[in-house]
């Protein structure tokens, strides 16, 4: 079993930072709802939510930065003239066939931009909740905005995540150093 360094970074970008962020979203929305819309004054969950939102903001930043500056350059790499095997050039591979071109023109072009809304929205939510804590429940419009921004962060990350998974299925980012994880025993 082996994986290339590009494959490993893509895995870390999507299944590491991205998937962990999406997992945290449902917990954050539920907890935000409970803290801001109930009469419960549990300061421990207040602190836990501050940590959760802060960690989610860090995950969102790691996801977009590794995506934009590590994985995306491999995706959009330009093949030398005369190259016939496009397996190392995912964008060109997708654009080479009418059956796959939409994965790029719709999928990647949507994903690459909408994903950037996620760190902005979640950082705003984390900073605001860290400032107000459970006192946010007293600011009715503000608490709705924070919950709304966490939801938009979730939606944008989900769009990017789903397209990312599908793109990696049809045109994976291959190449780089190969890491052997384990060798199968001969039967």
């Amino acid at each position, binding site marked *: 079993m082996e994986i290339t360094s590009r494959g490993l970074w893509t895995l870390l970008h999507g299944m590491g930072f991205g998937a962990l962020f999406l997992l945290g979203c449902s917990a954050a929305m539920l907890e935000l709802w409970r803290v801001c819309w109930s009469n419960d004054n549990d300061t421990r969950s207040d602190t836990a939510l501050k940590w959760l939102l802060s960690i989610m903001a860090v995950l969102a930043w790691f996801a977009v930065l590794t995506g934009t500056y590590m994985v995306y350059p491999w995706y959009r790499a330009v093949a030398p003239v005369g190259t016939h095997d496009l397996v190392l050039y995912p964008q060109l591979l997708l654009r080479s066939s009418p059956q796959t071109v939409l994965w790029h023109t719709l999928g990647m072009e949507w994903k690459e*931009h909408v994903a950037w809304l996620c760190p*902005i929205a979640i950082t*705003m939510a984390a900073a605001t909740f860290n*400032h107000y804590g459970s006192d*946010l429940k007293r600011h009715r*419009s*503000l608490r709705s905005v924070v919950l709304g921004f966490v939801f938009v962060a979730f939606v944008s990350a989900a769009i990017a995540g789903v397209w990312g998974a599908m793109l990696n299925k049809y045109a994976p980012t291959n190449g780089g150093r190969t890491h052997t994880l384990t060798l199968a025993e001969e039967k």
Partner: protein
Amino acid sequence: MNATSTSNAAKTGSAKTNGAGAAATLAAGLGSFTLGILTVAGDKFPAFRSAMNFYRPTGPLSGVSILAITVWIITWLLLHALWSHRDVAMKRIAIAAFLLLAASLLFTFPPFIDAI
């Protein structure tokens, strides 16, 4: 703290004014909207797309994202400096922020960009 902020703080029962939250909210909306506008501009104007090529391996996305983040951070710092110690009309700011965010979602959707 001025008279308006005191009366609003008393109304909400909160010890903190809503200005800091409003600044973060509106700045995030404006940053997102900038991202959307730059995405559309990059698609429609080849010269602008070339100008956004801040980091060649990433292409125009580098310029679009860097500029949007810069606008967001600067706006946040400015609004925070202006509003952090007072109460503002949060409902109107919340509506504006949601509209800006909704527009940015639309402006990053390729079929919408193609239809413009």
